[in-house]
């Protein structure tokens, strides 16, 4: 096996000595993400600045059979971007690939490097009266590339356009595990531009979105953008029953849920498990449209026996989650569990697991329950703050048990990750989808160089 010093030399030849490190104190900050996943250290961190450098790194990684892992903002919630192997591994820190490359105001698309943050992009767009549609829940440091590679979602989305990790991606530039460069959508045609997602043949962007980097490293993304919306309305409501929330969700998706309604967020606090609190953001280009949508919402809430409330709690919540993370870790660090995508009508299943298994049976009263009902389904979760290190083991044990129950129901896991994530649940089902994914992985990455152990366990490869 190649030793650490040789790898350092090879990487230094590619990027120079200032952007390679094998020093323990430089490695340890790359050993955790936001999840309770166990600490896992790479043997090297390298900071590429170009796709050509990434190509070269992947080529030598193949030559010496050392896996490569990718890190964006380091804010993954499920062990998706941490090394999974005991021996040498190379972590790519994409921090320096963070530019807004082009804002095309005619075609309404923006091209960015993967480590451009949503906040940076938003700032650049708003300077020109533009915006992207949807927002991530990971805070201002969340990167565009990281979001898209995990098919990220957040409180803002619409029935019509979904999340940015879906229809808003126009083209991707990916470096494949063998070093080949692939452009998707209209960019696949060498003499065309970046203007359409579904072009030429199969939608290859969709193959990479949500693959958690196992099929390629994203080096450039082009996204759909829109004129900024200056008019917004924030509302809250309390509904008496979960069934009412379901009806309201259907109503929103059928009658109100176009681009003018960007968020419907359910929150159930563990201190009041039968109070269904909704937070809603409406954005629009004209006052009369906002007023019309608001009236529809207010009327429906009243018809369902609910009450429209003060917007202050929503300001606080969105403030904490989206813009400031105020006091977020006061009660301990954060963990999402029992989360996934499910039909609007199936939310009682997940709620029941939370209420009966987490709150009542296990007496764990710190975890809340929530979800987003746009676009046309729930992305729901349980979330808690816990104290490290003393509550770590107990929390992980409970979360594993809850995940097992949840994923045996009508819930598709959101975020797969590595050995401390959900990959064992995917492998255990041995579906055609999973077999195809493995086939793709083996074809594109015969030596299992890229993100080894993420999504697909090493022994399954």
């Amino acid at each position, binding site marked *: 096996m190649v030793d650490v010093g040789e790898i350092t030399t090879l990487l230094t030849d590619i990027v120079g000595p200032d952007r390679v490190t094998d020093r323990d104190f430089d490695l*340890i900050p790359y050993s955790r993400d936001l999840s309770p996943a166990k600490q896992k250290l790479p043997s090297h961190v390298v*900071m590429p600045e170009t796709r050509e450098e990434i190509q070269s790194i992947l080529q030598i990684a193949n030559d010496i059979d050392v896996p490569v892992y990718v890190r964006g903002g380091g804010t993954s919630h499920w062990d998706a971007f941490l090394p999974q192997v005991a021996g040498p591994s190379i972590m790519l820190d994409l921090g320096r690939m963070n530019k807004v490359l082009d804002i095309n105001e005619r075609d309404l698309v923006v091209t960015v490097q993967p*480590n451009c943050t949503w906040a940076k992009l938003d700032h650049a767009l708003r300077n020109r009266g533009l915006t992207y549609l949807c927002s991530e829940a990971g805070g201002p440091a969340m990167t565009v590339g990281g979001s898209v590679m995990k098919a990220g979602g957040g409180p803002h989305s619409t029935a019509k356009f979904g999340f940015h990790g879906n229809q808003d991606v126009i083209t991707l530039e990916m470096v494949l595990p063998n070093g080949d460069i692939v452009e998707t959508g209209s960019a696949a045609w060498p003499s065309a531009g970046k203007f359409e997602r579904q072009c030429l043949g199969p939608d290859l962007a969709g193959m990479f979105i949500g693959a958690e980097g196992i099929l390629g490293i994203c080096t450039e993304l082009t996204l759909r953008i829109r004129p900024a919306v200056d008019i917004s309305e924030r509302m809250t409501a309390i509904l008496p029953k979960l069934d009412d929330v379901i009806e309201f969700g259907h109503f929103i998706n059928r009658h109100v849920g176009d681009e003018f309604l960007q968020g419907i967020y359910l929150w159930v606090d563990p201190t009041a498990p039968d109070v269904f609190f909704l937070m809603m953001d409406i954005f629009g280009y004209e006052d009369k449209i906002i007023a019309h949508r608001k009236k529809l919402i207010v009327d429906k809430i009243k018809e369902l026996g609910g009450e429209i409330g003060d917007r202050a709690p929503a300001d606080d919540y969105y403030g904490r989650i989206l813009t400031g993370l105020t*006091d977020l870790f006061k009660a301990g660090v954060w963990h999402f569990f029992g989360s996934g995508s499910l039909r609007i009508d199936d939310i009682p299943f997940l709620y029941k697991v939370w209420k009966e298994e987490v709150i009542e049976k296990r007496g764990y009263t710190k975890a809340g329950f929530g979800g987003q009902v746009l676009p046309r389904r729930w992305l729901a979760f349980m979330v808690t703050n816990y104290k490290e290190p003393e509550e770590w083991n107990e929390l992980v044990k409970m979360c594993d048990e809850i995940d097992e129950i949840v994923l045996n129901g009508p819930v598709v896991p959101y975020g797969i990750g590595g050995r401390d994530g959900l990959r064992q649940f995917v492998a255990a089902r041995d579906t055609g989808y999973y077999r195809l994914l493995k086939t793709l992985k083996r074809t594109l990455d015969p030596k299992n160089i890229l993100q080894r152990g993420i999504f697909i366990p090493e022994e399954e490869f």
Partner: protein
Amino acid sequence: MRIEEYKDMIYACGRCNLCHGTDFDERCPELFTQYWESSTLRGRIAIARGILEGKLDYSEQMAERIFGCFMCGRCQEECKKAADISTVEITKAMRADFVDRGIKIPEAGSKMVDTVLESGNIFADSPAVHAKWAEDLEFKRDAKTLFYPGCLASHRFKEKTRILVETMQAAGYELNFLGDKQRCCGTPYWITGRVSAAKDTAKTFVNMLVEMGIDEVITPCPSCFRALDEEYPKLLGTEMPFRVRHTSEILRDIVEKKKLKFRVSIDKKVTYHDPCEIGRLREIYDPARKVLGALPGVELIEMKRNREEAFCCGGGGGVKIMYEDHSNKVAKERIGDFIETNADLLTTICPACEMNLTHGTYAANIEARVIDVAELVAVAAGIVDKEILETDYFPDD
């Protein structure tokens, strides 16, 4: 280990990366100069946690990450919103652990401490040279308000310091001065981890002031201000028997209480650099702006990064001494913010910032003067000639 004291903070890090910034390195000057995650607050917390858990140990190679922190508090400003972790305190504790464990710290840092121990100031000035700026100024030996300029204002900015004192005296302040007895406040000790030397300095200094009957200390140096107002009480475990004020507050009082008449129009577009140590670390943002707003002919244009979001000048945390290239790179970047404003003058109210930003103008190859807010007050009040604001003016010092 001293970081044990901060265990709760260290384990409170949720690894959210808010400290890092939205544009890779637009917030943190250490990340701007050293790139690695280990240069961020999140990274430093991971290192501290690794040390606490026995997975990592301090090493000479690690020194650049720990001693290369500018202690500007930009990351902790963001972390206030999440876990309220104090980078400055944890970094100080880590530096002290280096010293306690006998691990070599950057040589320039050690030399700076030796110089202070031998000469009483960071420039190895003799007492007479160090107090030379005060020649011909009249201080009141029985005044209970002490003017304490600190090393940089005494050695490097003699003319600015004279102008400041003349301005305060013209406004009616009766000031005492230590003269040949002046010694460094001790900041070099705690920024290099020499806690025991810091304690001795604090004790001696406080005793001297008590003997003189001082009930207030006024200083233009944010480091000295924080030393006397924050560090001494912590080191000695007691409240100080005197009040400490930074000159930004004095100048604001002069303006608000109309202690001087401003007859001379400045006729300049001016921007203001917030010193980290009175800005983020003490939330003193408004006094200098109020002063500037009160001076005739001053048009204040803010830099894009201002107040809580101000970028460090590069002079903090001892980095100027220990890693001068990093310091100059940061200063040059901050000068870029100044250039973007198209202002005529870059003002601030900290001798360290004034020095480093001046060096930044050299690095950026522009001709510009970095002016203390007090100099503008003095010009507006007719105490000094307007020529000191001109780019081609060379002060006597």
